[in-house]
């Protein structure tokens, strides 16, 4: 039925099967739209956030998807600026993933601000001393850049490319892609950092507060490093999952290996710096604020195991897997490493968002736990469903993997 939209030389499932695949995600998205509607109409009382937990599931989601979406800018940086041409095989997919991650994050932020109709205030009356202002500006502009980068991929659809002026515009945009890649790198570098810096400057929250360099706390640099370390791993993970589900070989194994190698070296640097940062924080920064660091981990479920799991199991282990040439040759090992690395960055963002607020900072404060309402969960799942649907449509009708045709039999 839709074969005229599908590119030549690639195998895609039947329309019926594709619709059956989309149906459950569409239901999930539908429930999410209802929950979002409730939040927008009735307000944030639909959530379990309060004055203590001003950041909840949604901010965790934002931080996690923005970190994973770093694969887009970092792949673009490696391809267009450092000329790693092998990554041309995944750049389109990375751009689509980045667009999904950032647009999902902005969508959730629009619900999270409570009064989205006043969201423009942050642009019109910016507090230039706030890390959040920088994040808001950078994310907005970078989402625009991602949309511009997405456009040429869409314009090369089999039917759209029949319009001559579309291809001319696509060609002209393509020539200027290095400029957009450089701008994307600049914007991403700073907003990834500012998201971390946001926590590092919280003097009233000793669990998050860090010393730093000039105006930037160490979390600024750790967030950048963890994002660019896991971005390639996320591209690797999604590519191999899509390959498995579609039954098509999408890229050469060498591309997986390169992504893993880049991820591995960056991860090991991150793990090293994170370990040093943690030691300094436990022995100097936190005691200076009058708090015994052991108190940070005195309440379950946020015991010391979280720290160990984050740094060792979800940091060091995937780094070692990725750094081993023998392991890199095995797809199951690469998948294991990617899953661990992505979970690691998600856990880090969860800890920074939730544990920071849960740990009491004053003697009379209780340890507070937070559990999201169904509306929060449904909104979270909406972003997941939106991502799956948009990616599925893009994979079916656009050329996300230029090597795919070549990987077929002729």
């Amino acid at each position: 039925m839709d074969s005229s939209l599908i590119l030549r030389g690639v195998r895609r499932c039947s329309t019926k099967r594709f619709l059956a695949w989309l149906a459950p995600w569409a239901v999930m998205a539908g429930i999410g739209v209802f929950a979002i509607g409730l939040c927008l109409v009735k307000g944030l009382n639909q959530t379990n956030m309060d004055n203590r937990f001003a950041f909840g599931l949604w901010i965790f989601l934002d931080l996690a998807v923005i970190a994973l979406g770093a694969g887009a800018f970092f792949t673009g940086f490696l391809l267009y600026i450092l000329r790693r041409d092998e990554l041309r095989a995944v750049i389109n997919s990375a751009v689509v993933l980045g667009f999904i991650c950032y647009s999902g994050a902005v969508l959730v932020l629009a619900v999270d601000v409570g009064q989205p109709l006043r969201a423009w205030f942050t642009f019109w009356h910016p507090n230039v001393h706030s890390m959040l202002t920088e994040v808001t500006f950078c994310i907005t502009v970078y989402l625009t850049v991602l949309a511009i980068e997405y456009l040429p991929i869409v314009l090369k659809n089999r039917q759209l490319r029949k319009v001559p002026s579309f291809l001319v515009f696509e060609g002209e945009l393509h020539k200027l892609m290095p400029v957009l890649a450089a701008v994307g790198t600049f914007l991403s570098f700073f907003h990834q950092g500012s998201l971390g810096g946001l926590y590092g400057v919280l003097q009233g929250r000793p669990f998050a507060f860090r010393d730093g360099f000039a105006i930037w706390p160490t979390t600024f640099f750790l967030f950048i490093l963890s994002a660019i370390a896991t971005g390639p791993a996320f591209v690797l993970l999604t590519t191999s999952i899509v390959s498995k589900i579609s039954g098509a070989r999408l890229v050469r194994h060498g591309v997986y290996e390169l992504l893993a190698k880049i991820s591995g070296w960056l991860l090991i640097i991150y793990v090293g710096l994170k370990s040093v940062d943690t030691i300094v924080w436990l022995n100097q920064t936190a005691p200076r604020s009058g708090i015994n660091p052991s108190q940070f981990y005195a309440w379950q479920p946020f015991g010391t195991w979280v720290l160990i799991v984050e740094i060792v199991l979800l940091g060091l282990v995937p780094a070692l897997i990725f750094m081993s040439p023998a392991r890199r040759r095995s797809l199951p090992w690469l998948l294991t490493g990617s899953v661990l690395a992505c979970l690691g960055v998600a856990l880090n963002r969860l800890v920074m968002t939730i544990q920071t607020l849960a740990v009491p900072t004053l003697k009379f404060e209780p340890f507070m736990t937070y559990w999201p309402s169904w509306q929060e969960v449904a909104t979270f799942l909406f972003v997941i469903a939106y991502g799956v649907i948009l990616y599925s449509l893009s994979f079916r009708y656009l050329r996300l993997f230029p090597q795919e045709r070549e990987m077929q039999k002729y």
Partner: protein
Amino acid sequence: MLPGIYEFSWDQGHIIFLGIFYSVVIVVATTVVIALFRALRRSSSARDSELARWHADFEDLAPKDRRCRHELSGEVASRTCENFFSCRECMQHQAFVALAEAAPRPPADAEVPPMVAGFALPADRLYHRGHTWVRPEEDGTLTVGLDDLGMHLMGKPDRLELPEPGTRLVTNGTAWRATKNGVTVRVMSPIEGEVLAVGGESDDWTLKLRPEGEKADTRHLLCVAEARPWMLREVERLHVALATEDVGAALADGGVPVDDLASAIPPQQFDEVCGMVFLEP
């Protein structure tokens, strides 16, 4: 945000932060405006639109579909074309030609067989990688047609969209469109020129052109000696494309290709094969 707006002040924070922000916005906006401006300018030219289409198609070709003519003829071990098959502008091509001219020539074959793997390759014409040919005529005009593999594939098309006489064709642009079994392909023009006449059903040619300039520039086209290894490679690609999963690629060791390949190729593969043969991914 801007001077005059509540809470804006000319302090260091505002100047640095908003200065950087506006610079980035200006860079992004300028990039898009430049792309739009150039696109609008080029879209008005049919020639530029056709070249943009070919460049987009070429970039989507797999490296193994972009082998250099000098690799196919054995002059170099491996070389991928990055020049959109436009040998006229290729410095390497000029170097290869100079090298070949300087080398001692082997004695010419007494008779070059006119068939390659069952497909005719007459020596009186020049071949284009999109399976068309050009024959320079004595009156200075050029005759253009589909080569034998192209004819076997499209046979008698169900629908043919030919250019009107007077139309100016661009090398590697669209010469005509043909539809067969529900699949439409654009056939690439092997050379630039003005359409003088279109062929009928009984003719073995499709277009007659008046070349641009006094003499047609055919440096990008393959002579029959180069076309032979190229055609062999094309037939090999066709075999691989039509291979079934259980048997794999297999070359027939006898016989000739059936006249109507379109009927012999499974419908689900025909579209794919047409895209491969006519360089329209």
